[in-house]
């Protein structure tokens, strides 16, 4: 049991007639970062709220840090930290006041709560905020304080629900750095996001959620392989040579995708380096000039669109995000 931090089996949750979770299964190993990726309304937040005991599932067996979230909510609460989508802070109080209050509510004792608050303020670069109420913090500062609050009791499992939504690039980078440093300490992290790049950078394993269930899961590399592996992209100087170049390549012609507007060929390859060298040589021998040649993996964006189909409502949002 110690090796598994989160087990979700057949989780169901309905709001009225709307199914938010529809038989979701997920297992997260201890000490890893699990990304949960999906469009708006896929059920990500519902999942986090159930895992953090804020919401009762209609059905399913859900265990976090070795305890059932419904039957033993208090045991679970002793072992988790939560960073929700909206800042869960007292906005009228200052940063230190917030952390001290939460520390007392974790029953650290007045003195330890104070020491812990100071440690966390220092660690998240919030020492100079003084008495300023949290309501006047910038978005990034508020997120960092929120993250600090969720770490007071040194949780075994940390839930981050869209931790960087609404932050500017700098705020996002700050949160990413903090999360990475946490994982070094052995904390299990479950992170939901709409940003594919975020999952790619932070998560050991990723689950794509759509319609309240997991539609695909694996490491980022495994998921990328779902769309057909690596490709070599070639941009030619002269669009007129696209046809000739395609004919030269050592792959079946219908596997090559051609984008005439951008003067670009995209070629699926199996053996990365050999294939790249082969393409370069073939073009050189034929005297076709290339402006740019690149070997690339498919992006999670492509995997996402591949899995959910182009007509999904979340599609545009995901596109923008990347």
């Amino acid at each position: 049991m110690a090796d598994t931090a989160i087990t979700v089996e057949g989780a169901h949750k309905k709001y009225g007639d709307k199914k938010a979770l529809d038989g979701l299964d997920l297992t997260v190993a201890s000490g890893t970062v699990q990304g949960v990726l999906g469009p708006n309304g896929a059920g990500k937040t519902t999942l986090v709220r159930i895992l953090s005991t804020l919401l009762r599932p209609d059905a399913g067996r859900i265990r976090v840090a070795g305890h059932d979230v419904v039957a033993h909510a208090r045991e679970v609460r002793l072992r988790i930290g939560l960073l929700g989508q909206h800042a869960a802070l007292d906005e009228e109080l200052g940063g230190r006041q917030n952390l001290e209050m939460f520390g007392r509510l974790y029953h650290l004792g007045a003195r330890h709560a104070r020491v812990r608050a100071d440690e966390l303020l220092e660690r998240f670069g919030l020492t100079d905020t003084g008495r300023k109420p949290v309501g006047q913090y910038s978005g990034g500062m508020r997120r960092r304080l929120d993250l600090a609050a969720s770490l007071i009791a040194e949780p075994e499992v940390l839930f981050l629900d869209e931790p960087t939504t609404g932050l500017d690039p700098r705020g996002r980078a700050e949160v990413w750095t903090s999360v990475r440093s946490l994982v070094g300490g052995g904390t299990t992290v479950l992170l939901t996001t709409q940003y594919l790049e975020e999952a790619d950078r932070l998560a050991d394993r990723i689950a794509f959620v759509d319609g309240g269930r997991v539609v695909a899961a694996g490491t980022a590399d495994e998921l990328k392989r779902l769309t057909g592996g690596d490709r070599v992209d070639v941009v030619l100087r002269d669009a007129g040579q696209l046809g000739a170049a395609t004919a030269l390549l050592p792959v079946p012609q219908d596997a090559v995708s051609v984008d005439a507007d951008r003067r670009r060929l995209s070629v699926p390859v199996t053996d990365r380096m050999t294939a790249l060298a082969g393409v370069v040589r073939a073009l050189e021998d034929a005297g076709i000039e290339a402006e740019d040649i690149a070997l690339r993996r498919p992006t999670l964006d492509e995997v996402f669109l591949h899995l959910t189909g182009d007509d999904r409502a979340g599609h545009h949002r995901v596109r923008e995000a990347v």
Partner: protein
Amino acid sequence: MTPYALVDSWTMTRRELAHWARRPVQVLVALVFPVMMLLMFGHLFGGRGVEGGYIPYLVPGMLALTMAFGLEGTMIAVTRDLDKGVIDRFRSMPMASGAVLVGRATADMLQSALNLAVMLGVGYALGWRAHGGAGALLAAVGLLLLLRFAMLWIGIHLAMIAGKPEMVQAVQILVWPVGFLSNAFATPETMPGWLGAAVEWNPLSATATAVRDLSGDQGATSASWAAEHAVLLAVAWPLALTAAFFPLAVRRFSRLDR
């Protein structure tokens, strides 16, 4: 209940007190506003048709009205918390779940006790006296706080139904008529018969009349059952309201996970 119920309740009460320190002006306004009302109504109406002077009649009425209007303060505070998501953090922590409500209750009762102290002082300056002695005065204060206690649970319950702070205004439309359709400002005999009867049975009227009785001033102005048993009603009404709304409020709160 966890073994930490008391400690956590104290932490949550301290949170509310810290809020006071953060907005002293608002706290001051909350203390001064009922005093302003008292002065305003005292001079504006001058108590036509009230024997023995208007101030002894008005002061108990305003005390009861202030307790009743405490409902709004409770509602605003609760909806504000629910709206901000800080409740989510509390609920995801291993704290005693009732502590959030106990903290709210303690702070609101403290605020109301302060309100009472200030208004009694101002009332004294205006010429109101507790003729019934210290025991009766304490009993009167007890009845007023009992009314406030009932309003507290109504407020928490309504706030959780309303959800958003903006919705509180909708509830005010109900609270104000109930507050003013009482004997706080005028005796029921000066009103149309049907209204006077309704006014006598208003819980707020019962408390106001009981406080007048206890301070040895003209209490009941009519011989109706409600007027003659004002002290009994001033105990029964708040207890009945608390018995109804306390479980409702607690149930609503514990069902936030649905």
